């Protein structure tokens, strides 16, 4: 599609949203990727003023507990360990340090684009133990699961995974149960949904009367997702609709789910800013404990205090926005981040800082 046509279709969609939208509504974009896309594309400016978009906790780096970060930093200090991590995690501050600082001290920490590369590193360095730090939701967890199975198949004995993977529907439920924020609709994460499908969100319209639209990330995708939500809300018929039909099947990706369930089991997880959410985290199963960094290195979840004044917790729950935080732009900025929402490229604070500050 040429840019000209994209612009026309977008304009028509926006006008249609204006036409049918009659009341003040709160929509949450759950996923960090949507937060960034919405700010980058300037979507808020194009919508009616009474349609509010709130950023949710779907930024896996932002919600990683400080204690978990501390554990990873500690792990990275072992002489025979090569820590493989997705780039997003490198600058996140733990209680005292960060992976970036640990690397500056000479520890072998490598940014990887894929668990495949962590496997490559393990093959190339038989004398070391390679620990792949598994962050991410259901989009990424199957990829890490597949890497464990591949390591098993190939007899790679020096590959370990530290799973900090988290699950989307349980935290959505925790958010809705907290009653902190009144939502009318949720822009559901498009790529998580390619794996989990539409069914896991059904409890949201059924139990809470909130509209759901599984949405992609291109400008037209996002506008169409919002259009669907407004339509559902105006007609009083909340349901789970798939706007991203070219990538998401109602049943999800059965193979990916299968691999994920084979390697991981569900347990409790600690979400920064939200607290402990039962059934929201993934741990390696007993039979894969040889690949489990938490077992091998005896890593126990630790509690750690939030930095003073940091509002990341409330921002993640959409109770406040970055503009409400006293540290935003003053003490906390991408160069000197205080909390994870500023460090992660997809944290609300980072996105607001880099792409624009207007709230409406």
């Amino acid at each position: 599609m040429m840019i000209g046509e994209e612009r026309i279709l977008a304009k028509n969609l926006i006008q249609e949203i204006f036409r049918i939208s009659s009341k003040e509504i709160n929509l949450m974009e759950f996923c960090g990727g949507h937060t960034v896309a919405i700010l980058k594309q300037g979507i808020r400016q194009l919508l009616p003023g009474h349609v509010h978009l709130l950023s949710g906790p779907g930024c896996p780096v932002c919600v990683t507990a400080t204690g978990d970060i501390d554990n990873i930093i500690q792990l990275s200090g072992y002489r025979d360990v090569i820590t493989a991590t997705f780039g997003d995690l490198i600058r996140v501050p733990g209680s005292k340090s960060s992976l970036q600082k640990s690397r500056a001290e000479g520890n072998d920490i490598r940014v990887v684009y894929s668990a495949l590369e962590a496997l490559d590193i393990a093959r190339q360095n038989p004398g070391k133990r390679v620990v792949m730090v598994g962050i991410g939701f259901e989009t990424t967890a199957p990829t890490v699961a597949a890497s464990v199975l591949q390591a098993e198949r190939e007899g790679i004995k020096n590959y370990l995974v530290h799973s900090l993977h988290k699950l989307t529907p349980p935290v959505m439920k925790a958010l809705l149960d907290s009653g902190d924020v009144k939502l009318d609709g949720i822009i559901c994460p498009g790529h998580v949904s390619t794996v989990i499908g539409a069914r896991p969100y059904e409890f949201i319209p059924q139990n809470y009367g909130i509209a759901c639209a599984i949405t992609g990330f291109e400008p037209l995708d996002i506008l169409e997702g919002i259009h669907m939500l407004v339509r559902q809300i105006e007609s009083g018929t909340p349901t789970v609709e798939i706007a991203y039909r070219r990538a998401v099947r109602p049943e999800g990706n059965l193979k990916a789910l299968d691999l994920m369930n084979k390697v991981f089991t569900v347990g409790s997880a600690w979400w920064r800013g939200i607290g402990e959410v039962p059934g929201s985290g993934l741990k390696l199963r007993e039979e894969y404990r040889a690949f489990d960094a938490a077992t091998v290195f005896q890593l126990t979840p630790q509690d750690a205090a939030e930095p003073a004044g940091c509002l990341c917790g409330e921002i993640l729950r959409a109770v406040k926005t970055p503009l409400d935080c006293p540290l935003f732009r003053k003490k906390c900025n991408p160069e000197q981040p205080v909390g994870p929402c500023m460090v992660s490229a997809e944290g609300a604070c980072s996105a607001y800082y880099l792409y624009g500050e207007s709230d409406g």
Partner: protein
Amino acid sequence: MCLAIPVKVKSIHGEEAEVESGGTSYKASIALVPEVKEGDYVLLHAGYAISIIDQQEAEETLRLLREIRVI
């Protein structure tokens, strides 16, 4: 946690595939979409293909969008 981009499957070798977009290619894993064929478009996330893009659905979505007109 959603950075995935559409790429084309150029060739398949066992559980890996060479995928390409705009001239840039990557040796990806197709462990999550074993039924994929050469010529398919997939979503690439963290080095793995996570979904096969349904061309018909893509066209249908476009058709519906084109139907939304200003009165």
